[in-house]
């Protein structure tokens, strides 16, 4: 099975993700895949959920915090500015408090809480998570390519969805129970109407958003998740471990792509011992990969002669991944 076939065979898989250890080429593959799909005539958005995003570098365009930016016809790229989103969100909360209670100034203890909350490390991740839901819910593109964070973070990102979901489920339960007491009191005092519980509505809204996002990540029909690895021992082992963990979270794994393979034609040339050893190591681990991930390797991408930045290099890489198009 080749990468191209996967896209032809499963046209409904519209959320494309690349996972793997840091520095193996997730961003490069995200960019190349979005290039390929855009050239095929689909409207594509490639976006980064990494606070240290590098789409700006690979497309050689400053897109950080600028919303979806057109790179070429049909291809849009976006890097989320988490800081700015958090600040805007804080202001929104302050304004809501002022409006609700007609206050001029936010009470000091409330204000200090708003500031302290934004300093939490989880805040940035949550803000990005929330923006991703915004992006996906709008459904303006044919394909969404997630440029994911390195493995550990990606797992955190996935587990966050299920933890949030369970937590919100519990407090929504408590809130509903409180509502029952309200109703009992209202019936006894013969009040006809009960005010709407704004907090309960808010909780249901949050729950809905989290469900939307995590259901996309784990939707076997619509999502394709690819692992990137290289022919090295540590990376093979880590990838196996990560694949098991991802499977636990019901992430539908579509296959593996080997990156940075030294081109075999070099072997016939007069090469120094150093490179010969690299080839021996590579051949050994390619065999290991073949055994461990039998039938699930979708593409083997050669080490390029220079780093992949700019559209001409992205195009070249896309052709090695998907064949000529």
């Amino acid at each position: 099975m080749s990468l191209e076939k996967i896209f032809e065979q499963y046209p409904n898989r519209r959320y494309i993700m690349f996972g793997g250890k840091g520095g193996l080429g997730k961003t490069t593959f995200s960019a190349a895949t979005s290039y390929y799909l855009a050239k095929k005539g689909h409207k594509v958005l490639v976006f980064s959920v990494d606070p240290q995003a590098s789409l700006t570098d690979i497309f050689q365009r400053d897109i950080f915090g600028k919303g979806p930016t057109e790179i070429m016809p049909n291809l849009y790229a976006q890097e989320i500015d988490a800081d700015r989103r958090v600040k805007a969100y804080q202001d929104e909360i302050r304004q809501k408090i002022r409006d609700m209670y007609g206050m001029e100034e936010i009470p000091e203890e409330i204000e200090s809480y708003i500031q302290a909350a934004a300093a939490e490390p989880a805040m940035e991740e949550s803000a990005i998570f929330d923006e991703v839901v915004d992006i996906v819910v709008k459904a303006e593109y044919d394909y969404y390519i997630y440029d994911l964070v390195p493995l550990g973070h990606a797992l955190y990102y996935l587990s966050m969805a299920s933890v949030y979901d369970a937590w919100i489920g519990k407090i929504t339960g408590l809130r509903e129970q409180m509502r029952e007491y309200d109703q009992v009191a209202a019936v006894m005092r013969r009040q006809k109407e009960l005010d709407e519980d704004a907090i309960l509505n808010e909780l249901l809204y949050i729950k809905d958003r989290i469900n939307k996002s995590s259901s996309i990540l784990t939707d076997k029909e619509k999502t394709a998740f690819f692992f990137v690895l290289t022919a090295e021992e540590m990376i093979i082992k880590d990838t196996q471990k990560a694949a098991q963990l991802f499977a636990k979270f019901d992430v539908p794994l579509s296959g593996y792509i080997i990156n940075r393979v030294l081109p075999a034609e070099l072997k016939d040339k007069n090469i120094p011992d150093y490179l010969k050893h690299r080839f021996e190591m590579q051949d050994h681990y390619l065999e290991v990969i073949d055994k461990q991930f039998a039938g699930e390797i979708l593409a083997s991408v050669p080490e390029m002669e220079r780093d992949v930045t700019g559209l001409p290099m992205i195009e070249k890489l896309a052709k090695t991944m998907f064949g000529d198009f």
Partner: protein
Amino acid sequence: MAEDERKRTGFFQAVKEFVYGVAAHDSARFALKTRASMEHLFILITMGDMLGVPILPPYYSLRLLPYVVPQISTWKRRMLREKDLTDALA
């Protein structure tokens, strides 16, 4: 006639309130009291880190903050107050 009508509804109203007072007022008061302590529990699990008890990732707890602003100071007082035997009688 209208005078009679008014007397009658006034009488029924009084009976209604009397019955409510005898039969239901206490239960209603109890329901509201339970409701109030649940409200405090709710604020604790959503805004816990105001007291140094972090429970929820703060992004979504901020969304709920505007609704509990009026209760925050009574909640803090209740949570941080020293407890003694007479509390059980209250």
